[in-house]
């Protein structure tokens, strides 16, 4: 196949060629960046909460005075445990994908803000909560009975805590976190153990790297640890158990108010939490498909027009001995050339677009391997789009050459 005649022909249609190439360039830039955004959101959706989501549900009540907290807790825990199918009912202040209840900046030094570690989530848990969550201990020890200290308004004054591996590696890189101290103003914490994974309540609002800066704080029931209960049941029972538990609240504690919105299974909380991301993914994919579709239609339209215009020329070539394959390959090669010009431009554009996105949104660099994938997709698309008109061209009979207009 000789390229020279194709280039010569394209030179006569410079404008149309350039337009299609530009369209492909834009499609390439959007395609690469959209796929990158989709991959980012996908990673977010699959945030590892570190807990046994399928077996857990959370139930929240409010509308009672702090002085009633101990009484409400006692009645609720007893009442919830009595529901058939409940493996355990324990106290917790917040769960991943639910409302954030306790977060604060912590430091290496007491009272100061000079040696900041970062903003962490404090998950307060009563006896049994750690086990119910299904957290995986990788280092240190589990909380013992006397680790559960009362918390009046925020967290216990002096707590023995478990941190996530992500937080430990950030705060004490290269060191064993066990026995290390940290502070939040005058509140003191000592690390007794490390868990594998444990997500914050709202991981989305922080950088991906900070999504698991969580501190499990053993706390005695009452004070700031009241009103929110963690239910554990077999995965197939969770929905029913939660429904029964919600219905039972009116009997167990008639004077409190059930928080319908925040009382959900962990599975539902996760689904709701990432709803906007799923919509965004759908939207991005939708736009990519439409854009590729429109680009393909443009190629079909333009090639069809060129085939119509060159019927006579094709006839002459056929009469002079060109095979159908030759004609077919001519249009395929022509398309390959145009798409290649487009892709070359498109890669530059993709990087430019990525730079703009990085400036306005918190996004990392576009990984290089997205570019060849985008290029392959567009080459494929071009060849598919050109196939119809090219086949039609190859069926132009040689006899056309002998006819006048």
């Amino acid at each position, binding site marked *: 196949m000789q390229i020279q005649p194709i280039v010569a022909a394209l030179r006569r249609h410079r*404008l149309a060629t350039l337009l299609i190439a530009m369209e492909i360039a834009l499609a390439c830039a*959007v395609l690469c960046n959209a796929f990158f955004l989709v991959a980012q959101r996908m990673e977010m959706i699959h945030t590892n909460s570190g807990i046994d989501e399928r077996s857990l549900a959370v139930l929240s009540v409010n*509308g009672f005075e702090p002085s009633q907290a101990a009484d409400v807790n006692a009645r609720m825990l007893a009442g919830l445990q009595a529901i058939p199918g409940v493996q355990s009912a324990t106290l917790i202040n917040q769960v991943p994908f639910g409302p954030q209840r306790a977060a604060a900046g912590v430091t290496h030094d007491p009272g100061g803000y000079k040696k900041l570690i970062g903003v962490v989530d404090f998950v307060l848990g009563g006896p049994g909560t750690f086990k119910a969550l299904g957290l995986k201990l990788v280092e240190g020890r589990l909380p013992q009975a006397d680790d559960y200290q009362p918390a009046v308004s925020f967290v216990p004054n002096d707590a023995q805590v478990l941190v996530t591996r992500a937080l430990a590696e950030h705060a004490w890189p290269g060191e064993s976190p066990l026995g290390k101290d940290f502070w939040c103003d005058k509140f003191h914490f000592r690390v007794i153990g490390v868990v594998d994974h444990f997500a914050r309540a709202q991981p989305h609002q922080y950088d991906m790297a900070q999504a698991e800066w969580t501190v499990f704080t053993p706390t005695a029931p009452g004070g700031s640890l009241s009103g929110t209960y963690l239910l554990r049941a077999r995965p197939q029972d969770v929905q029913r158990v939660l429904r029964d538990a919600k219905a039972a609240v009116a009997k167990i504690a008639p004077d409190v108010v059930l928080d319908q919105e925040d009382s959900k299974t962990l599975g539902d909380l996760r689904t709701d939490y990432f709803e906007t991301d799923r919509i965004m993914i759908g939207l991005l994919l939708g736009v990519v498909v439409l854009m590729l579709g*429109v*680009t393909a239609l443009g190629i079909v339209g333009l090639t069809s027009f060129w085939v119509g215009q060159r019927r006579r020329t094709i006839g002459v070539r056929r009469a002079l001995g060109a095979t159908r394959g030759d004609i077919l390959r001519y249009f395929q090669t022509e398309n390959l050339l145009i798409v290649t010009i487009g892709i070359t431009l498109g890669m530059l554009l993709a990087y430019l677009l990525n730079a703009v996105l990085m400036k306005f949104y918190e996004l990392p660099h576009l990984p290089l391997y997205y570019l060849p994938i985008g290029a392959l997709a567009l080459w494929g698309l071009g060849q598919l789009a050109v196939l119809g008109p090219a086949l039609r061209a190859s069926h132009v009979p040689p006899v056309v050459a002998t006819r006048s207009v």
Partner: protein
Amino acid sequence: MIAYYVDLALRSLRRSPVLTGLMVLAIGLGIGASMTMITVLHVMTDDPLPGRSAHLYTPHLDPLPRDYHRGENSPDPSDNLTWPDAMGLLKAKRAVRQAAMAGGTLLARPAQDGLQPFYVGGRYATADIFALFGLRFEYGGGWSSADDAAGAHVVVLADMLARKLFGRADVVGRTAHLGELDYRVIGVVADWSPAPQFYADNTGTQYSDTDRFFLPLSVAIDKDLPVNGNQSGWGSDDKAGSGKRGAEMSWLQFWVELDTPAQVAAYRQYLVDYSVEQKALGRFERPPTDAKLYSLMGWLAHENLVPDDVQLQLWLALGFLFVCMLNIVALLLAKFLRRGGEISVRRALGARRRDIFAQLAIESALIGIAGGALGLAIAQLGLWSVRHRPDDYARLAQMDPTMLAGTFVLAVLASVLASLLPAWRACRIAPALQLKAQ
């Protein structure tokens, strides 16, 4: 002449229905996607209080210590006022009307039996708020400055809450039980929900929140009622400056009415003077020129309530429209140049270049109108899907007449713009050469 061109255009479009269909489809898809997002942006940045917004301003002071450093994810404490500053501005009465306010959520216990207690959002405010924002009373009225000073336990309910609590709207004189306290109902206002809730603290969900009750601010502070939104303190816990009455915690919003440019300038000067005075007293550390007076729309622009995702979606949609337009340019180019013969005959018969240009532009405008109609249908579908999103702005996503007309204007504009280059090329065909070649 135009009728003739329209007739010519229709014939030409009918001659190649597939190509015409492709172009209408491309314009329709691009316009539909763009108009969906433009409409969402339009309703999110629209004037929440048409008619009154031009008179409303919000003053902002900067009481933060010189070395205060804000975390990257935390809100700006100087977005709100401290209690002493709000009371200072209130007592100075330098504006036509002024009110300090803060949001709160209280547990409401219905007077009717058998109804569950529920949480309801409302506002703690000073007496002027009703006249300032132009709320309409259905029954009774607001409270007076004297009630503010006395901390009277009175409440103004929104129609919807009155009906929910008592089963009817005419409830002036009855007692409402909110939180742990009883209040005498002195007025009922028509439901009022400006979107966004411009006067609320900006950490809330401002597109879906609505105030259902109004209480005197003095009651909220006397009884230490729960306050919504950002309450930033910058003093240490041990000093007397902390707490809601303290000078080192900001939690109040403040709005004033100013009717003339002279009043606006005077108030701006007053804010600077006030800051100078506070600095002399040793309370403020930052330059007095940090004090700002925002108009309502200026404040919304400053807050930038449009989420990143919506902006990204808008750019995505506009990018898509651009690709669609490029596509149409290429298709029109092919279509127009194919008609070289016809154009040459018309030129040879005396049509000027500009006549040919007008004819081709009208042909594209027709494609634009058809594409606009298709785009409108697609945009309605898009807005329907936006309304089913979980975001708080979702319910607002509706087209108004401006957007409806805008859809067609944008569609015709896009298609005529796309036809400029092809039409220009077609005009430049040399008739003699073309006719000779045939």
